[in-house]
């Protein structure tokens, strides 16, 4: 007998696979792209949820990692497609259009950025942490706007989607399968990490820092590790998102992006492994259905979000599967 949560997980993942497959048979590429967006946003949300749900770190600056991932893709592909080098000294570094390399670079650089931002922001906690992460993301936003080499305010267009061995990534369904595969991989990793000794210690530190310290663990180190992993996952999502649009712009660094990633997590349910995926899917559904109703659909989104926060805490998963994981 599966629990309600496991049933919901299975239904969600099946739906995310069946909708684009159906759309492929019905020759509706737009629907495939829409689902791909949901999958990528889901990965970004899983990243944030690792810090927020498991570690209790309310980061309002995850756009920093999402945007960095996007720019890694943009810059590497731009140099490869124009046959120029990223740098010539002290050694020559060419660009690349291989997705796997782009992902690796995006993950590593996002992890490094998260290490820097985390080390500074974790010197504080609570409301300071929220404001500081938001401020650092805004710093990168202004840097991306004022740095003219890669398009500045206008962003950077890439004409051909990057390559993945054996696939035609320009075909929407094939690119979707790549993203879906990565989603499964990330879900599996996060699932395993949440149950590892590290994940358990992190959850314990969120609930009671003093006791964890008394047991000989270092909460600050746990938080920082969680923040780095979280940033790396969101950075990967950023690289995929830029590849989906074949375009990257400073908007990916904006505070609205940070807010939206947080909305995915909250709509789905904080602390649930699959929650952000459900939240992202619901967000795309709302955007699509409400966006058709009215140009001012953000008013409705705001009202729904307000309702969820004030009255239906726990998001979709809390509503359907009951409150098992409390966030505090």
């Amino acid at each position, binding site marked *: 007998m599966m629990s309600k949560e496991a049933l919901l997980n299975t239904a969600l993942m099946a739906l995310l696979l069946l909708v684009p497959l159906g759309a492929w048979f019905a020759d509706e590429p737009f629907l495939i792209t829409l689902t791909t967006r949901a999958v990528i946003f889901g990965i970004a949300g899983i990243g944030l949820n690792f810090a*927020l749900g498991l570690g209790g770190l*309310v980061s*309002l600056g995850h756009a920093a990692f999402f945007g960095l991932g996007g720019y890694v893709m943009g810059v590497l592909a731009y140099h490869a497609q124009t046959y120029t080098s990223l740098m010539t000294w002290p050694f020559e570094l060419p660009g690349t259009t291989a997705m796997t390399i782009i992902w690796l670079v995006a993950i590593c650089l996002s992890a490094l950025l998260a290490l820097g931002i985390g080390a*500074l*922001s974790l*010197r*504080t906690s*609570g*409301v*300071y942490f*929220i*404001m*500081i992460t*938001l*401020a*650092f993301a*805004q*710093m990168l936003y*202004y*840097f991306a*706007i*004022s*740095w*003219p*080499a890669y398009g500045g305010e206008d962003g950077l267009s890439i004409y051909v989607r990057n390559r993945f061995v054996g696939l035609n990534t320009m075909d929407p369904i094939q690119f979707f399968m790549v993203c879906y595969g990565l989603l499964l991989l990330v879900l599996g990793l996060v699932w395993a990490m949440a149950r590892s000794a590290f994940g358990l210690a992190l959850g314990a530190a969120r609930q009671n820092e003093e006791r964890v310290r008394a047991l000989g663990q270092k909460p600050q180190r746990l938080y920082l590790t969680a923040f780095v992993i979280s940033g790396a996952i969101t950075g990967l999502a950023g690289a995929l998102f830029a590849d989906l649009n074949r375009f990257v712009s400073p908007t990916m660094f904006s*505070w609205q992006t940070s*807010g939206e990633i*947080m*909305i995915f997590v*909250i709509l789905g349910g*904080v602390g649930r492994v699959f929650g952000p995926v459900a939240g992202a899917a619901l967000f795309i559904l709302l955007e699509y259905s409400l966006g058709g109703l009215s140009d*001012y*659909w*953000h*008013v409705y*989104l*705001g*009202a729904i*979000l*307000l309702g*969820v*926060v*004030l009255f239906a*805490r726990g998001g979709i998963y809390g509503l359907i599967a009951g409150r098992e994981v409390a*966030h*505090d």
Partner: protein
Amino acid sequence: MSLVLFIEQVLNGLQFGVMLFLMAAGLTLVFGVMGLINLAHGSLYMVGAFAAAATAAATGSFVLALIASLVFAAFAGVLIEVLVIRRLYERDHLDQVLATFALILIFSEGTRWLFGSFPLFLDKPDWLSGTVGLPFGIVYSRYRLAMILVGLAVAVGLFWMIAKTRIGIRIRAGENDREMIAALGVNISLLHTFVFALGAALAGFAGALIGAIQSVQVGMGEPVLILAFVVIVIGGIGSIKGAFVGALLVGLTDTLGRFLLPVLFRLAMEPSAANAVGASLASMSIYLLMAGVLLFRPRGLFASQ
């Protein structure tokens, strides 16, 4: 010659800093007394600017426009405090962030629906346009000078209110111990509404004053809000003095950074590259300032604890 230009930039930095203080004061008061992080503070700034622009367009009077900005922003503040914010005081910061983020979405789209997507313009009145001569042959914009003086006057008034009046005593008592002053018979929920409306009015006033030198448009509040966050992180949350010092530091660092860094890089680089690198670094300067303060004083320069 160059010194005159430099002093002019210092004045610009002061003007920017004083306006940031009007934003940051409300945020830091609301956090200090109610323990609430309010992302929708930028929306109140926008409400003030739009109220001023609409009133100026209807009546032609700048003074009426400023009064309208105070009234409308305070009214919007009371409205959201009573309907939404009040339910958030006992919630955790995550809920506060999300609910006030939702308020931003509602305010921004609502304003776009009412006024359209095109920016409005708020003209300076005739008696404040043009320039004014200062000692040492400095010529400075009359309007910006007025902004500095008005901002400083508001700051002095705020310090006086908090230090000397009965309501100020209650605000300080509320910061120290919420339950205790409620037990002593102070109407705590009225006090909360008052503090929130005061912060809203200050933000709306800043929006109107800035609206006359920039365009009035949807989304104008959030960049200023994030700068105000940087200000109170530097100053220490809950401290009005910290907000004032932080605001001036941020205003001067940003303005002088934009002015001096390109000049500095031009010593070592060709002019176009120097301008690009200088501008990029200048856009990051206040965040680097914040990081520097965090390294040495994690709870800000004037933290209350």
